[in-house]
Each structure stands twice: as C-alpha cells, then as structure tokens.
C-alpha cells in the first residue's frame, strides 16, 4: 500500500503547515489596528472561496509559468513523485490554513476581553500576551472544530490525484483499471479511509481530554 504512505505524509505535512500559517493569520486578524488584519482577511477570503481543485491546478500548472523561466523549469523538472507532492503539500497546507485561521480568530474572540486587559496591565508585551495567555485558552476552545478539520484534511488529500500524485484513491483507480476488480479495489480503499477517520478522531479525542481545564470544561466538551 504505497498510496497509503503518500496520503498520510501529505495529510500530516500539510497539517503542520496549516497549523503554523493558520495560527499566524488567525492572530493577525485579531490585532487591533494596522494593515495586518486586512491582509489576513484577504488571505482567508481568497483561499476559502476558490475550490481546492482549482487551487491545486494553480500551484501545479499556473505558478511555474508565472515565475521566471529558470525557476519554472526547475520546478517542472522535479522527479515524478516530488513534482506533484510538493505543490500538493503547499496547496493543501495553505488551503487548510485559511480554515484554521478562522477558527483561531473565533477562539480568541470568544475569550472575555478582561483576559487581554489583565495581560497588558501585568506588563505582558503583545507577543507574550498571545503566546502565554490568549492562544493556550483559544486552542482549548476550538479543539472540537480542529478535530473536524484534521479529519477533513485526510479526505482532501484525494484531490492531489488530479495532479498525478498516486495516493490512496488513485491507487484504487489504477488497480481497477489493471485488474477490473472494482469491488475489491474500491472496497479496500474505502475501509482504509474509514480506519484513518476513526484513528484521527481517537487521537484528537485523547488530546481534547488531556488538554481540558476544569474552568473551561464547558467549552472543551464535545459538541
């Protein structure tokens, strides 16, 4: 099951990018003034309102053409799995980041404003205030929706088959075309996706339990 490996590494890699970028953009959107909140909004609206597949094509087909010729050629000449894996990774990571950013923003805004005021009264700088006070609480609030997002990213990896990455679903299609064993090929892959979904849910559920604080128990409970 080589396809399973590609699906898992694409999903986990993209998840890492998405968490980092998503948190930064989400924080940017809650800043009181300046150009950053607006840029954050542009980022989120752009990535949320264009289908993932179109974004995939953009990274794979369009971007190498728009870059300087030498860079574009270098990208196009990457070895087979990497030539589609890298664009898919960037694409899925940045796509999911926009969705995570919205959740992070909602999480921060759900905190009582006294938290922010108390932090600045105690002399925290803006960076420390977010890092030590606001984000740890916000993440606990949004864990249930993050669980959903984590399960979605595994399903979204299947879109990478359109730019030639032979992940799980593409594997099923290839087996079907070579052997005509439609039921077996798609049946096995369906079950693998079910198992992945179950495992992803289990992992996130454990994290939710471990991270729960007594005072926030209401917010940390499952929906």
């Amino acid at each position, binding site marked *: 099951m080589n396809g399973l490996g590609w699906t898992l590494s694409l999903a986990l890699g993209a998840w890492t990018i998405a968490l980092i970028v998503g948190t930064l953009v989400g924080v940017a959107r809650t800043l009181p003034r300046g150009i950053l909140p607006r840029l954050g909004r542009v980022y989120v*609206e*752009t990535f*949320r*309102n*264009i*289908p*993932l*597949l*179109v*974004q995939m*094509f*953009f990274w794979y*087909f*369009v971007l190498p*053409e*728009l870059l300087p010729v030498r860079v574009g050629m270098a990208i196009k000449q990457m070895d087979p799995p990497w030539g589609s894996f890298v664009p898919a990774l960037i694409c899925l990571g940045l796509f999911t980041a926009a969705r995570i950013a919205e959740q992070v923003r909602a999480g921060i805004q759900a905190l009582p404003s006294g938290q922010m005021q108390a932090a600045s009264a105690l002399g925290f700088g803006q960076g420390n205030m977010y890092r030590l006070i606001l984000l740890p609480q916000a993440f606990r609030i949004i864990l249930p929706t993050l669980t959903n997002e984590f*399960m979605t990213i595994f*399903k*979204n*990896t*299947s*879109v990478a*088959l*359109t730019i030639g990455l032979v992940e799980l*679903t593409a594997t*099923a*299609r290839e087996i*079907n075309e070579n052997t005509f064993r*439609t039921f077996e090929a*798609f049946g096995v*892959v*369906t079950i693998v*996706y*079910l198992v*992945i*979904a*179950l495992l992803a849910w289990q992992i996130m559920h454990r994290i939710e339990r471990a991270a729960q604080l007594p005072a926030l128990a209401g917010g940390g409970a499952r929906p």
Partner: protein
Amino acid sequence: MMVDLSAIASATPYLLSGLWFTVQITVVGVTGGIVFGSLLAVARLSRNRLVSTLATAYVNLMRSIPLILVIFWVFFLVPWAIGWMTRSGRPVAVGASLTIFVTFVLFEAAYYAEIVRAGFRSISPGQYSACEALGLSKFHAYIYILFPQAIRNVLPILLTQTIVLFQDTSLVYVISATDLLGAATKIAQRDGRLVEMYLTVGVIYFVVCYAASQFVKQLQGRLAYGAR
C-alpha cells in the same frame, strides 16, 4: 509569459455552458440532498433501533470518505447495478451527468442530514410534546411544525454547506465531465492557454462564492436579530 485576454473572450461561450452544468449539479445536489438528508435526519431520531442505526452508519460512512472516491464508486457501480436490475447481465452505459447527479445527492445528503438533525435538536422538547398532545400524526408534526422551525434555525449553516457544494462540483473533473473547470481544462489543453483559463475560472468561483458568503453573513445577522 503574457496573459492573452482574447483567448479568454473567445472561450466565454464554452465556459458559460460549463458554468451552466455546474449550476445544474448544485441545484440537483441541494434539492436532492436536503430531501434525502432530512429523511436521514428523521430516521436517526427514530425510536426504531434498526432504522436509526442504519441511518447513522450511512451518514458516518459518507462523511469518512472523500467525494472523489464516491464519484468513482457510482461511476463504476451504477452501470453494473442497472445491468443487474434489467437482467441484461452486463453493464449498461450511463451518461456522466446521471452519475454525477446521483453521487452528489447521495454524498451531500449525509452532510445535510447532520445539519437538519442539529436543527431538530435546537427545537424545545415542548414542541414535540405539544404535537403529540394535539393528536398530530408523526408525518404532520414533522411537515407542519418541526421541520419549518428546524430549517429556520440552521438556515445560515445550510447555505454555507451549499457554497461548499458549489465548490465541490469542480471535482467532477475526475470523470472528465464538462463543468466550469472541465470546460476550462479542455480549452486550456486545446489552445495551450493554461494560465489564462485557470485564472479565469478561479476568479469566477471566487466572485460567486464571495458574494454568496457575504449574503449568508448578512442573513445570519438579521436572523439573530429577529429571533430574540
């Protein structure tokens, strides 16, 4: 590389026909999905153990696998299933559009079912008891009392899911159907105009979805204000 605007202009009629198919899939998916999804939601709330377990299993299964995989399932299985039902013994060729319509209804119903179920749960239990006390049959209670309130409560989420559905229609690319993206791809490959075509469809999707999501946001504000 230069962007050639005339290439976009000459492709417009074909792109519009693709957009029309995208709209058709969305309309069929939304209507069929909400009808089938509501039935699933009612089934999940049923007191009959078998019915509720089956509905739950269906919803969870559909929500755990990617849409592309479901498209492939239907694409390969429906011809075979029709062949079996008509006893012709071999698969019957089925058009891509039928495959796509069936897929979207089956798949989106699972997502709509969850939303409608949340709507049912948001109605106060007194409403259910009142229906019973008034002697309404289950059918009438759902049609006249419960369903309208449930839909009203979750209308913004329902519409957001519809925007997602509109974006998801682009995935029919995998069976070479000619929706908006499919039309763009065919022209892009014929004329070697990948950049122009993909940027154009990107802009079209963005404008439609952004306008729709702004509308939902406004509606959400108005509903929240009207409720209490």
